[in-house]
């Protein structure tokens, strides 16, 4: 979402708070290791599951969990990105297949979050490929959200909030594990909420 509008790629224009406008070309990211907790005790863990959420593919935006009937939970936890063990485990399929465009080729590692588009003033293209699994540039984020709902959790990523953290005049291209990738990943983690 961008403020109250769902993000549509390519043509839709979004207004940043500083007056600039922005268009998105690509927006996709990994969600993994989903857990449901009741009073901080895990009641459901989905191991070795990795979801590529792609704004270009609406079906990728629904995740179906299958916990036991009747469990109660008041918190959901998940990773934004791919853990370090998976990053060194060789070729994998499904959403982790390197043809998904979320794997660096010149240096091994998954891109956890990819956002590409154009900013109008100053006019420039931006490419944020946030990833990195090794110290000191580990950009994986653990996200925890409290909820009172039991079914159909609607998790929102507020891109307006994230874009406020980005200085589009200075930061245009992040394409490798680095300090900025870690900082922006941390900012991104604060942009998730439950509606």
């Amino acid at each position: 979402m961008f403020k109250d509008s769902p993000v549509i790629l390519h043509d839709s224009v979004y207004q940043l708070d500083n007056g600039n406008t922005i268009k998105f070309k690509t927006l996709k990211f990994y969600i993994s290791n989903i857990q449901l907790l009741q009073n901080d005790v895990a009641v459901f863990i989905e191991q070795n599951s990795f979801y590529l959420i792609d704004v270009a593919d609406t079906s990728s935006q629904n995740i179906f969990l299958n916990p036991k009937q009747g469990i109660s939970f008041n918190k959901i936890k998940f990773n934004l990105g791919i853990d370090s063990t998976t990053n060194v485990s060789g070729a994998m399929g499904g959403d982790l297949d390197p043809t998904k465009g979320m794997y660096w080729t010149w240096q091994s590692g998954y891109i956890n979050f990819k956002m590409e588009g154009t900013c109008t003033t100053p006019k420039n293209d931006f490419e944020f490929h946030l990833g990195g699994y090794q110290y000191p540039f580990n950009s994986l984020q653990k996200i925890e959200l409290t909820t009172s709902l039991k079914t159909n959790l609607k998790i929102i990523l507020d891109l307006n909030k994230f874009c406020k953290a980005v200085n589009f005049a200075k930061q245009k291209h992040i394409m490798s594990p680095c300090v900025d990738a870690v900082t922006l990943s941390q900012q991104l983690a604060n942009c998730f909420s439950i509606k």
Partner: protein
Amino acid sequence: MRKYAIVLLCFFLFAFVINESHFTVPENFPQPVYDFSKNPLTENKILLGRTLFYEPMLSKSNTISCESCHSPFSAFTHIDHALSHGIHDSIGTRNSPALMNLAWQNFFMWDGAVNNLDMQALAPISHPAEMGSTINEVVEKLNASEKYRKLFYNAYGDNTATGENTLKAISQFMLTLVSANSKYDKVMRKELSFTDQEANGYLLFKKNCSSCHTEPLFTNGNFKNNGLPIDLVLKDIGRMKATSNPNDSLKFKVPSLRNIEYSYPYMHDGRFKKLSEVLNHYTNGIQPSNTLATQLNQGIQLSSNEKVDIIAFLLTLSDKEFVFNPKFQYPK
């Protein structure tokens, strides 16, 4: 019931033998680091991988295959080329490494930027000066090919190529490239013995070289700065490129010395054509720097005769059977 059990037992024995024939750990080698359980070798997968290894469709212009820079007769490197060339005659920045005993390697590329054998092929496929393509483009071409649909079906029971099964098949072939039948190995297995000169070279080698070029793989798998003056055009900082850590500046992966006779020129940028030049570097050419390998702080002292003996020993690391193994050649 008994009959069933016997049939089952035979099946397991058969499977065991088949698997063994694809990959055997040489008796003087440690256990491999590659996780075979995630990619168990089969004859048809190896054949697919071997076919892909020799496949020019992996490059954008359908002209360059893996073999272009990794030819079997040179222990899978690109002899006579200091720097390898890719599509449209583009020149890369590093000497293509010889390929062998890859199941024992934790890191790939001179700077270790690749962390798993499966992911290695992505780098040359995508590099603009090598194959200039993408894995998506490669998979698309393979899926449009009747020949590959058949090979994928035979290998995976599914005729669709994916990034995962394409890369894993290439790994399968590369994993079979085991070199462990040199004269050195036969001496270690007490089947042959060294000449006096080779034996002396071996002693000198163990004293001066083996802390990095450790037996039996002839590499310790580490990254070291071996005191080469930096090439002012290439300005290659080595492992620091992959880690951004200044302590890794000018460090490169210690290469195996197996089949060194076949795999000239030497060093990450192929600057030395002869083994004598390499030894002269270690005795006379070490450049001091903060990240220099501690073993080289004092340089290495060797007389001319000692250098000749070391070279005689290094030539015992040549494995003719490996280089001419018909199973590794272009699949007809």
